[in-house]
Structures are given as C-alpha cells and as structure tokens.
C-alpha cells in the first residue's frame, strides 16, 4: 500500500485486500522494515525439505491390508 501512515495503510488494505474474504486479519508495516531472505540462499534455506524425504508419510511402506494408517 502507499499511505501516509499506518492507519491509512490499514484503510487502503481493507479496500484492496478484503473484498473476497481472503483473510482473517490485516497487518501493515513500512516496507523498508522488511528483512527478506536472498534468493541466492534459497538452496540452503529450502533444501532440507527435499533431502529429508523421510519427513513425508509416503516414505514409509505399509503392507497391503493394513488400514487406517
């Protein structure tokens, strides 16, 4: 949002982002205050999801006939 202050940003956010029940609350902060990760670090940050496949339930083979698990 572009706004002079937080209150105005919240009002604009209401007009722009709540027309279709997209969320349950709004929060605004000055964009200069956001600290974001660098896409260059994506491998280090997100790799653990890929190389620890045992975190996924499908990693474990359960014999046929055993149900509700």
């Amino acid at each position, binding site marked *: 949002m572009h706004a002079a202050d937080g209150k*105005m940003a919240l009002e604009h956010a209401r*007009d722009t982002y709540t027309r*279709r029940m997209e969320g349950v609350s709004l929060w605004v902060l000055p964009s200069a205050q956001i600290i974001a990760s*660098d896409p260059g670090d994506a491998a280090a940050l997100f790799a653990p999801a890929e190389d620890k496949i045992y975190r996924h339930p499908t990693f474990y083979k359960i014999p046929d006939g055993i149900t509700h698990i």
Partner: protein
Amino acid sequence: MYTTDLSGKKAKPEAAITENPAKLAAFEARVAADEFIEPKDWMPEAYRKTLIRQISQHAHSEIVGMLPEGNWITRAPNLRRKAILLAKVQDEAGHGLYLYCAAETLGVSRDEMTEALLSGKAKYSTIFNYPTLTWADIGAIGWLVDGAAIMNQVPLQRTSYGPYARAMVRICKEESFHQRQGYEIMMHLAAGTDAQKRMAQDALDRWWWPSLMMFGPPDDKSPNTEQSMRWRIKRDTNDELRQKFVDITAPQAEAIGLSVPDPALKWNETRGAYDFGDVDWEEFYAVVRGEGPVAKERNQARVKAWENGAWVREAARVHAEKRANAKIAAE
C-alpha cells in the same frame, strides 16, 4: 488486450549481446522449465523493461477502465444494478493496485507510472477510448470487455514473473463476476421491450469490433510476440486468443437473440471454429495513436482526479508528519 504490445516496433536485440551469457542461459533455462522469476532474481534488462511496460500498461488499463463504467453508476436503473456496478468498478481499482505493486517490484516507482499515464506517454487498452452511450453499454462491457480480459489473463496466471502471475490469480477470481453481471444485463434487455432489445443490439454493434481489437494486431504484425512467448510473459498469440473469443462469444449472443455485427461470421465445420470478417486495423492504429473517440476526455478525467486529490495527499502527509513528531516529543 490490456497487455497488448502497442509499441508496434521490434524490440532491439542488443540485450542478448550485452548480458552475461552464463547468467542469461541460466535465466532462459529457468523460464523454459516454467519456474517463477522473483524480484530479487537476476533477469535480463530487456525482460525487466518489457515487463515494466506490460504490467504498468495493464495497471493503467484497469484504472482508466473505471471511467466508462463510472459514468453510469449514478444512472444505474435500480439499486441492485447500482450496488453491483459499484462493486465491479471497485474491483477494477483493486486490479490496478495489485498490478502497480507487481510493477514496483521491478524497480519502477508508483509516481513514475502515474506520471507516464497522465502525460500520455504510457498506453492503455484501446477499448477504453470508446464512449458508454447507454445503459446497455455497461452490459456489453462486462460481457465482452471483461470476457476478453479473462481470455487474456487466465494464461497469465502461469506467466514467468512471480508477482505478476500471483496478481493474475487474484484478478481472475474476480473477473468472472464481472463478465456474468454484464451478460445478465444484456440477457434482461434482450428479453425486454422492443426498445430495450434495440438498445442491447446497438451496444453489441458498437462494442463487438473494438472488443476483437483488444487482442492486438494480427500475429504477422506483432513483432515481439515470439520473444514474449519465449519469456512466458505472453502465452498465446493475438490471433489465437481472438479466435477463441469469437468461438466462445458468438453462441452466447445467439442464445439471447442478439446478432453479431459481422456478415462473414460463420461456423466452419472443418476448422471446428468460426470464420469471421476482417477487423478494421486502421481504426485500431488510430486509437493507439490517441485518436480514440473519447481519448482526450479520459486523459482529462485522470489529470483532474490527480490534481483535485493533491490537497488530500498533502494534508495526509503533513498530518502523519505532525503526529510522528508529537510522538517523538512525548517519548
């Protein structure tokens, strides 16, 4: 379309030469693999520039697009229609904002974009330089113009630039309400009195061809299509989308007893598609040059809104500053 390349000029190929070849190859491979490019990722300058032009032009189209419909809010025939039209126009303002935000992630400022729109330097869709003469025009716009917009925007949900693609997802969710409310207006008028039916037909007569023009010049006159398709910032050619639009829309007109103003329109069994007449491209290029019937009024309306709002922006800024200072003093 809102995103049609209206420059008509072939982009200079210099970018490919001056960019770092290894980075460029890695970028092209990512795009070819349908990965999303995010704001902080490396991208070729030409890609950035093309996207800024395309997204800001799309944003301007949403904003200017509020004017022809805004023209009828006070004169909507009943409260139901008025509430619907208000909500629709408000959606369009939202679309403009999502898109300005997406363009800002590429390093262009909101002020630069506003300035380009007001000075007439930036283009927007040709369709909004036609006047809305009757209430039926509001029906025709929702049905045809938003219908054409959907056709263009659905594939853009998979466009290569992440923020743009995500803005498109939000926008597409809202567009189908726009199209259906427009069709409903036409449906009611077409089933009404003779005068109402004539009004609906007249609106279709005036909006049909300009709607086909929204998809931009024919493919052989659209020099940057190939590059844009490779970069996944365009996913179908102008002619493909135009054909799709005719195929879907012609039966919708027939279903409510209106006739498409094109004597050459005919179902082609072998092609499995409609044949249709030639678009008057001279008219299209004239509108692109700024000679559309109400181009001047549209620009004046935007300039007036900007100037009349200056004191509000200024007051808000001063007020915020005063409060911030008072807070510091109290601490």
